[in-house]
């Protein structure tokens, strides 16, 4: 079979990343330039600053990738780029950059959904096995997706309000934790006990998710305790919150696992870096005797290799080929 080499570009949040991926699996080279330290000074990602830093970094990141890989751009078969969802200003930098490369080297331009990238990150070290169930968890998404083959999917459930990652970050803020909130909250939770009573988000009759109630619950609890002058044990509150937030995901995955037999259960998206969540989903997979897959850390956080992995089946199927009028979109569902 012919080797397909895809140049992939990812600029949807605060990482400028470019990768060369062969056949959707072999990561020939990848560069990730993270802006995290800069955004940490502001307590969160500042979209305008992110866009500025992508613009400054993008050609340098490419140069470094090409030097490392000894690949020449005329050897590539296609250019893949994250066009949605994410921060619009950042996405636009990657999209315009990818268009220029596609144009100069006369290669197809493939638009990739960032969240599909997170799912296909599992196809780098492992293989996707259909039918599969994918739990996509990030700062903007909480979606349960069933895939029967490459890019044939059903959305089984989604958040009705806030995303899980967003809730982790907001609760971290309430607890005065530095950016990035989610990982710092997880660190506290490790040393805490689940002892604060927080209400479960929604009932088990539906497969959709809800996090805004849980978030308000934590805010109210912290306010109440402050007013009464009762000291809050941050470790315990973090552990209690994490337990309920993760339980919401576990219960909904279980509904889907009961209804149908899957070959694989996938955890994808930025929040899949959370170890407690990984462990709980892994236990559930064991219980239902379904293979559990989660990417290694490098491919869990935003990276271009996963975009190259997701672009490969699109290239083979001639899907998502984009013209130069491609625009970026800040909000779309994983399955769009």
């Amino acid at each position, binding site marked *: 079979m012919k080797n397909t080499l895809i140049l992939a570009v990812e600029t949807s949040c605060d990482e400028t990343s470019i990768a060369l991926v062969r056949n959707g699996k072999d990561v020939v080279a990848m560069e990730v330039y993270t802006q995290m330290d800069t955004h940490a000074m502001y307590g969160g990602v500042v979209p305008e600053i992110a866009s*500025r830093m992508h613009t400054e970094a993008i050609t340098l990141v490419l140069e470094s990738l090409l030097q490392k890989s000894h690949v020449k751009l005329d050897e590539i078969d296609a250019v893949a780029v994250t066009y949605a969802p994410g921060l619009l*200003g950042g996405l*636009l930098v990657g999209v315009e950059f990818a268009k220029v490369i596609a144009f*100069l080297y006369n290669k197809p331009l493939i638009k990739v959904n960032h969240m599909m990238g997170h799912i296909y990150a599992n196809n780098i070290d492992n293989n996707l096995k259909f039918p599969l169930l994918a739990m996509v968890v990030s700062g903007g998404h909480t979606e349960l997706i069933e895939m029967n083959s490459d890019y044939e999917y059903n959305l089984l459930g989604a958040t009705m309000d806030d995303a899980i990652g967003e809730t982790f970050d907001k609760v971290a803020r309430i607890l005065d934790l530095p950016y990035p909130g989610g990982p710092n909250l997880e660190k506290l939770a490790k040393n805490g006990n689940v002892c604060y009573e927080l209400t479960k988000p929604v009932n088990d009759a539906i497969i959709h998710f809800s996090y805004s109630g849980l978030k308000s619950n934590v805010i109210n609890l912290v306010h109440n305790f402050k007013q009464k002058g009762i000291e809050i044990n941050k470790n315990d509150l973090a552990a209690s919150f994490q337990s309920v937030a993760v339980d919401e995901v576990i219960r909904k995955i279980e509904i889907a696992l009961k209804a149908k037999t899957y070959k694989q259960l996938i955890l994808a998206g930025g929040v899949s870096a959370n170890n407690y969540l990984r462990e709980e989903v892994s236990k559930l997979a064991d219980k239902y005797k379904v293979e559990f897959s989660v990417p290694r850390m490098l491919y869990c956080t935003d990276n271009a290799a996963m975009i190259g992995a997701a672009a490969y089946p699109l290239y083979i199927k001639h899907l998502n080929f984009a013209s130069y009028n491609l625009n970026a979109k800040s909000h779309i569902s994983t399955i769009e």
Partner: protein
Amino acid sequence: MYSLLIDTHDTKVSFVVFKDYKVLDVIDIESNMRHSEIAMPNLVHILDKNDIDIGDIDEYYVVTGPGSFTGVRIGVVIAKTLAYLQNKPIRPINSLDLVAFSTEKIIPGCYLVPEKNGFFVGNYDENGLIDSSLKYISRKEYEDTRYDTKYIDRNIVNYSNVIVHACKLKPVNPHLVNPLYVKQIEAMK
């Protein structure tokens, strides 16, 4: 010899192709802030229309602002990527230069580009912008100071003259061609 000027700093997307420093063709489209959809297709269009291969472009000019933050980034990313990958010289020019360079000889004085709540101003002598004089002023500050300004109308841009002045500027390493924001954003204050 062909030169290409890219300008996306305001509500328009503009491409100008020069042959031996004479204007060969201009595309100037009101994009309604859909620069991303408009820019690359029109770059391809102006080249095709004039039967020019992108490899035939010998040098690039790009307007780096100040202006619309997102708008200017579109043109800058396109221009710096083209120049970098083809190893061609690139010269950034600012949005005030566009006006100041539009006369045969630069008329010394204070030039001004209007913005939503204020103005970008810069002082020019006969050689161009005086170093570090480019700044943002609020509408109130403008009224209080009574700036003696010249040419604020973008419609007077004369590309035939612009290129004569712009080609004298020093080329810049494409990696270092970045937007000129001038105005600070809230979070950075």
